[in-house]
């Protein structure tokens, strides 16, 4: 299970590459981890995991994404961006295990976990993702500068 930094960076990279608004994709990329509100409950001395665990399932996350998207004028477009963010989150959690057990893709019809067992990750994955995001950022930054320079010369 990658941490939030890795999840949001993957969301950012995906949004950039697919040319979908990154601000919305990164929000989508952490919607499933709303399940972590249980940490607040644990801090207050009660375990509400039995209530909150559906947040970390596609069904629960899509419901939350759907509700949030309705607070925008162009709800469909926003929902699509959220869905892409949510999808990157589950793809990461499905591929990389280590702290979670995989994803309940078929919940609420089945409670079983699905996972791709080959890769276990730790903080080094986050470092790698951050470097990739930085590389992409610099690429866009310099290609933007070049474009500006060319436009100035031609005008």
């Amino acid at each position, binding site marked *: 299970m990658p941490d*939030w*930094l890795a999840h949001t960076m993957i969301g950012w990279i995906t949004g950039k590459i697919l040319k979908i608004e990154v601000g919305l994709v990164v929000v989508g990329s952490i919607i499933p981890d709303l399940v972590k509100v249980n940490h607040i409950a644990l801090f207050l001395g009660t375990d509400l995991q039995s209530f909150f665990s559906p947040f970390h399932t596609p*069904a629960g996350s899509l419901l939350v994404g759907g*509700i949030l998207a*309705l*607070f925008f004028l162009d709800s469909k477009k926003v929902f699509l961006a959220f869905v892409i963010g949510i999808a990157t989150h589950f793809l990461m959690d499905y591929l990389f295990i*280590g702290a979670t057990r995989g994803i309940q893709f078929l919940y609420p019809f089945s409670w079983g*976990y699905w996972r791709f067992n080959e890769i276990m990750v730790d903080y080094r994955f986050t470092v790698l993702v951050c470097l990739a995001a930085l590389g992409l950022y610099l690429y866009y930054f310099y290609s933007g500068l070049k474009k500006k320079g060319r436009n100035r010369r031609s005008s």
Partner: protein
Amino acid sequence: MKKKKFMLIVLLLILLVLLLFYNHIEFGKNDYSNSNYLFENYQRFNNTEITFKATIKDVYSANHTILATVLDYPHTVVTIKNVTIDHHFQKDDSIFVVGILKGEKTVFAEKILVRGPWDDSIIFISSIPAIPFVLYLFFRTWRFSSKTLTFERRRKDA
């Protein structure tokens, strides 16, 4: 906000609350995320793949076996067999195990990840910068209008 959208929000919220309550009611019968549940219901999960976190109690290199205490309460001690000792497993190592449940308290290991003592703290600490990152990226483009109760795009020339 249009009335139709408002109604849809209410409908989806009700659906979400129902899902959370359904989960709460069924959780005790389906808590696959609690490894103790898997070991207690071993007949149901026998010969299936399970995962759990544990602490190594003893290593028997010659038998390719590890004795480990499961992290979840009540900290059942399980035997992990078929362990390839290419890694120097040590007593008190914190591990994440993927394996096939064989009987009441025995697991045939498929993969064992040794978790560093700081792994959970690192996940927590490295998650903190993500919060301002998300807030910045989002509110750079959107602002909430209390008049229309919707998020509106900030004007680029503003």
